[in-house]
């Protein structure tokens, strides 16, 4: 159970990291009208934007939070990308290259390079799926066409600077990253679609969110703060699913442990029937004898849990040292190397289950041992 919980904890941690560092960040500042479902289809040129007052208004809060790692402003838009005879729909994101690179540490560049800032013409990074469908390589030039916030059709030629893989197929077949300045030219927007923030210490998330919300409310700024788990509801679904699987697993393990220990305790009580009969004859009451067996069961449970938890911790460390090659999760392009965390809570729960199961398993046999008259028990010996 320690290993299973450790493996799941690693899986959850890995999923969190992949969500946060694939571009979502730990939190985002979003326009009030925007909702958490960022995948819905919207009309071209109909965007909710954050005004410049927002970024100015919260800057002090973000600057004051020592745990803030990166603040990445974004400007999202949609349009068509054309490469020669092929034209496809795309989802564009205007980014601050320096901030965004810190926020996308899990994004893999399969060709080309990240924005250098020294490009002579606007550059774009294209998702691998989209690049494949367009048949483009780094240094190729594509045309981006969109409707600006003012309702005008705009276009720009950009050079492919690199091709990236986020690992999420759906994302990689439609995303184009461009510098914020290019996105502003295309959208003619003065505001932003949002600001993504990563934290060095994720445990400070609640504090930072609280501080931002107070600041926004205090200054009557029209924006909302969304946590990463609100922005990726799939995480909660996955965790819920796996936790149910873990619960079923724990239930099965508990039943097996109870049956195993009950068998052991039954044998122990059976083998000691003469001893119990003698103790009863000497004046040991039923309570003392039951307590004696329960104490023994507790000792067995503690010993068993110490061995089990110890072995589990060693197994977790071994798995983490060696790693387990895992296939790509559904919808992803990359597999990953799994490890198993040592989870203190899981260790406590496993130990408690072992001890509790041992005690529970001992109740029946110990009660059986004190049934009937002492003389009958002695005769049975």
């Amino acid at each position: 159970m320690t290993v299973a919980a450790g493996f799941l904890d690693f899986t959850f941690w890995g999923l969190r990291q992949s969500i946060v560092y694939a571009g979502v960040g730990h939190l985002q500042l979003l326009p009030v009208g925007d909702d958490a479902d960022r995948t819905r289809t919207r009309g071209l040129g109909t965007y909710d934007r954050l005004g410049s007052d927002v970024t100015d208004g919260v800057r002090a809060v973000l600057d004051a939070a020592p745990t803030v790692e990166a603040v990445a402003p974004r400007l999202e838009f949609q349009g068509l990308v054309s490469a020669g005879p092929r034209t496809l729909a795309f989802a564009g994101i205007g980014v601050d290259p320096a901030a965004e690179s810190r926020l996308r540490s899990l994004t893999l560049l399969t060709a080309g390079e990240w924005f250098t800032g020294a490009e002579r013409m606007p550059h774009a990074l294209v998702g691998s799926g989209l690049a494949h469908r367009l048949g483009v390589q780094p240094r190729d030039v594509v045309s981006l066409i969109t409707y600006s916030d003012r309702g005008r059709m705009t276009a720009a030629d950009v050079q492919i600077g690199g091709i990236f893989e986020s690992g999420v197929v759906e994302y990689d077949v439609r995303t184009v990253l461009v510098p914020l300045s290019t996105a502003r030219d295309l959208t003619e927007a003065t505001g932003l679609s949002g600001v993504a923030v990563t934290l060095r210490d994720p445990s400070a998330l609640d504090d930072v969110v609280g501080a931002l919300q107070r600041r926004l409310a205090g200054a009557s700024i029209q924006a909302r703060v969304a946590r990463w788990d609100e922005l990726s509801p799939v995480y909660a679904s996955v965790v819920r699913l796996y936790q149910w699987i873990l619960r079923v697993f724990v239930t099965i393990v508990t039943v097996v442990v109870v049956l195993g220990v009950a068998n052991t305790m039954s044998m122990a009580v059976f083998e000691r029937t003469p001893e119990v009969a003698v103790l009863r004859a000497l004046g040991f009451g039923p309570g003392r004898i039951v307590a004696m067996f329960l104490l023994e069961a507790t000792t067995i449970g503690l010993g068993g849990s110490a061995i089990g938890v110890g072995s589990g911790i060693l197994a977790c460390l071994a798995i983490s040292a060696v790693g387990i090659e895992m296939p790509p999760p559904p919808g992803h392009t990359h597999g990953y190397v799994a490890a198993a965390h040592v989870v203190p809570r899981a260790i406590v729960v496993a130990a408690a289950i072992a001890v509790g199961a041992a005690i529970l398993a001992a109740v029946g046999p110990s009660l059986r041992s004190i049934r009937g008259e002492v003389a009958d028990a002695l005769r049975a010996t």
Partner: protein
Amino acid sequence: MSAVLAIGLRKQFAVAGRTVHAVRDVSFALAPGALCAIVGPSGSGKSTLLALLGGLDVPTWGEVWIGAANVGRMSAARRTRFRAANVGFVFQAHNLVPVLTAAENVALPLTLLPLSARERARRVDALLDDLGLHDLAHHRPAELSGGQQQRVGLARALVTAPALVLADEPTAHLDSRTARDVVEVMRAMNRRRATTIVLATHDVAIDALADEQIALCDGVVARRHERRREPWPSSSSDSPSATCSVTPGVPSLPPPPSRWLSCS
């Protein structure tokens, strides 16, 4: 007052749909400090009678008094407490706790009494000395001979200074020489401590050492014999009567021959 008084004891069991009379209309009285042997062949009801006397079982009919306590009328919990303080048991198969040392086995019944650790240790040491077991105090039962184990069992029975010690076939698993040694030790403790001892046996050699013999046959007292005990040692001047009293209506019989061991 008698140390043990049995009045019209009966014990019936239902076995395979029929009633078995393990003990029928047994009455007798034992004076304090008596050493009484209950003899009879296997199945004659010796162990059942001991169980009734020691409060390990309740009679179907009749009464058992130990001192002023009517044991048969007590609740199970009260009988348990009563046994802890007033009755010691010696078992046929020694029945020592294998994981405990001789001293720990002897100390076991004391854990039920409100005594300090020092007092417990003192009593255990004194008894082990008395029984010549001092050097074996830290040995586990598996490291002791049969006779030594039975001595430890006797020490465990005596350590609470009970009014009554019941021994069920205490020499059954011993060779004749060791058996005689063990019985002599019991006899000596009986004399020295004025403890009433009732032992069940079908060993003819043992009953000769007893003050009184009660022969059971098919659960009924077939014969009864008492002999005058030797005087108490001077240190036991305050010991109770050295003679076995006989319950009215249960006549004394002449010393029996070895045919006691059968119901013929």
